[in-house]
C-alpha cells in the first residue's frame, strides 16, 4: 500500500462517513467497467436475439468478453478466479460468474452453428439450440446478478435497497435496446415504425426515471443518515457532475429530445447518437451510484451513550 493510499485510508477511517473505494478506485474501478459492459451485453444479446439482429448479438458478445476481462482485472488474485464458482448457493457474485460462463459458452456454440461463421457445428443442430438456451439463461443471470450484489452489501445502506436489482435490470434492458439501435444505425438501417424499438426505449426509460425517483425518495425517507449522505453526494456533492451531466443530461435528456425528431429527422446518424448517448448514460449511472456508496458508520446506539 503506497503512502498516499495509506494516508487516505487513515483519513477515511477517521471520517464519519467513509466512502467505499473498494469498487471505485484503482483496480476496483474495473468492476464499474465490468458491470457496465456486462449489463449492456446481456440486454443487447436478449434484444438482438428477439429482433433477429445478428450484428447486435456479435457486438453484445464482444462487450461481454470485455466485461469479463474487466471483472478479472478487478480481482487481486485473478489466477484463482475459478474458485468463484464454488458458492453459487449464497453468493450473487458467484451466480454472476456462472451466468457469464453460461453466456460465453452458449454464445460461442450459437455462433459456431450460424452460417455467418461457416456453421462448423451445423445449423439448427441440438448443440446450437443448447447454446442458444444457455446464452439466454446466462444473459438473464447477468442482468439480474449485479443489482443483487449491491443489495446484499449490508455495509452500504444506499445500495442495500430492494429497488436496486430492478433498477439494474431496467438499465440492462435499456442498454440492450441502445446497442440494437446503435447496431442498426451503424449498418445504415433506419428504424421502421413497425419495429417499435424507439417506443420500447422510451417506455423503459420512463420506468428507469420512476425507479430513480423511488430509489432517491426511499433513501431520503428511510431515516438512514448514511443513505441520505449517499444521495447528497449524488445530487449535490462529489458526484453531482457525473449524475446530472452523465446520467441525466447525456443518458436521458439528449436521447429523449432526439427521439421526438424536433431537432433533426430520425436518420441513421441521429439513431446512432441516441444509442450512444443512452449507453454513455448507462455508464454514468453505474459510475455515480457505485461511487456514491458510503459505509455504515459504527457508533454506539443512542441509548448507551
Amino acid at each position: 500500500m503506497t503512502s498516499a493510499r495509506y494516508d487516505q485510508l487513515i483519513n477515511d477511517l477517521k471520517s464519519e462517513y467513509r466512502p467505499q473505494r473498494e469498487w471505485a478506485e484503482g483496480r476496483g474501478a474495473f468492476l464499474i467497467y465490468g458491470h457496465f459492459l456486462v449489463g449492456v451485453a446481456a440486454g443487447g444479446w436478449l434484444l438482438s436475439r428477439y429482433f433477429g439482429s445478428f450484428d447486435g448479438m456479435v457486438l453484445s458478445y464482444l462487450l461481454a468478453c470485455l466485461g469479463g476481462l474487466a471483472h478479472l482485472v478487478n480481482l487481486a488474485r485473478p489466477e484463482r478466479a475459478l474458485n468463484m464458482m464454488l458458492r453459487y448457493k449464497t453468493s450473487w457474485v458467484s451466480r454472476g460468474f456462472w451466468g457469464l460462463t453460461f453466456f460465453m459458452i452458449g454464445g460461442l456454440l450459437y455462433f459456431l452453428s450460424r452460417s455467418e461463421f461457416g456453421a462448423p457445428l451445423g445449423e439448427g443442430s441440438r448443440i446450437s439450440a443448447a447454446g442458444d438456451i444457455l446464452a439466454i439463461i446466462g444473459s438473464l443471470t447477468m442482468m439480474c446478478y449485479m443489482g443483487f450484489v449491491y443489495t446484499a452489501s449490508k455495509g452500504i445502506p444506499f445500495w442495500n435497497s430492494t429497488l436496486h436489482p430492478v433498477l439494474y435490470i431496467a438499465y440492462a434492458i435499456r442498454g440492450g435496446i441502445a446497442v440494437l439501435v446503435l447496431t442498426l444505425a451503424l449498418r445504415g438501417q433506419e428504424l421502421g415504425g413497425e419495429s417499435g424499438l424507439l417506443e420500447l426505449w422510451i417506455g423503459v426509460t420512463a420506468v428507469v426515471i420512476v425507479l430513480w425517483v423511488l430509489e432517491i425518495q426511499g433513501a431520503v425517507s428511510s431515516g438512514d443518515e448514511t443513505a441520505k449522505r449517499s444521495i447528497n453526494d449524488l445530487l449535490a456533492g462529489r458526484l453531482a457532475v457525473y449524475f446530472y451531466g452523465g446520467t441525466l443530461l447525456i443518458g436521458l435528456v439528449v436521447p429523449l429530445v432526439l427521439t421526438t425528431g424536433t431537432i433533426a429527422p430520425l436518420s441513421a446518424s441521429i439513431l446512432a447518437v441516441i444509442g450512444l448517448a443512452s449507453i454513455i448514460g448507462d455508464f454514468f449511472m453505474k459510475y455515480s451510484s457505485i461511487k456514491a456508496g458510503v459505509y455504515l458508520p459504527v457508533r454506539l446506539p443512542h441509548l448507551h451513550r
Partner: protein
Amino acid sequence: MKWGMVIDLKRCVGCYGCQLSCKAEHGTPRGVFFARVLKQEEGQYPTVSQTFLPVLCNHCEDPPCVDACPTGASFVWEDDGTVDIDHDLCVGCRTCMLACPYSNRYFNDNEQAYYGDQGQTPYEAARTSQHQEGVVMKCNFCRDRRQEGKEPACVANCPTVARHFGDLDDPTSNVSRLIKERAGFVLHPDKGTKPNVYYLPA
C-alpha cells in the same frame, strides 16, 4: 460452543492497548487493523462527553460476509462459531468488505511498507511475510492463541480488564453472566447479523 467477547465500555480508557497488542501479535501489514478503537465525542462545551468504542470482527452468527463471499474463503468454524478467512481461496474481490455492516475487514494490498520509498524494514519483512497479498484479512479471535489455551491478545493485554472472552453457549460463563447482569448489547442489531461481540454500557 460459541466463542464471544464482551467489552465493558465503562472500563475502557481508550489506551489503544488492544489495537497495539493485536498488531504485535499478528504482525498485520500497514492498513490492516484487526482491532481498532473509535473515539466519539458528543455535545458542546461545557457539556461534552467522549466515548471509546473498541471494535473488531463481530463473528456474527448470521454473517453477511460469508454469504456474499463467492469462493467460500470466508467461512464459519463449526466447532466454535468464529468467522475466519481461508486466504488460499480468497480472490481479493472485496465483496465481503462491502457486505460487513461493521467495516471490520481490510484488504491487504501490495507494496506495504511503513517507511514508503525506503521499502520494508527487516522487522516488517519478517512479520508481514506470513500474510498473503491481494486478499482480505480480519480478526479470527486469535485462533492460534486459543489453540494454545490462551485468550485473544486484545483480551490478555487490556490493562483495565475491559475485555472478557468466553463461551456464549454456556450460561454460567463470565461473558454470559456479564451480558445478563449488565444488559449487554450489540452494534447494529437491526442488520440481523446476530453478533457475538457484546458491549456493556458506559
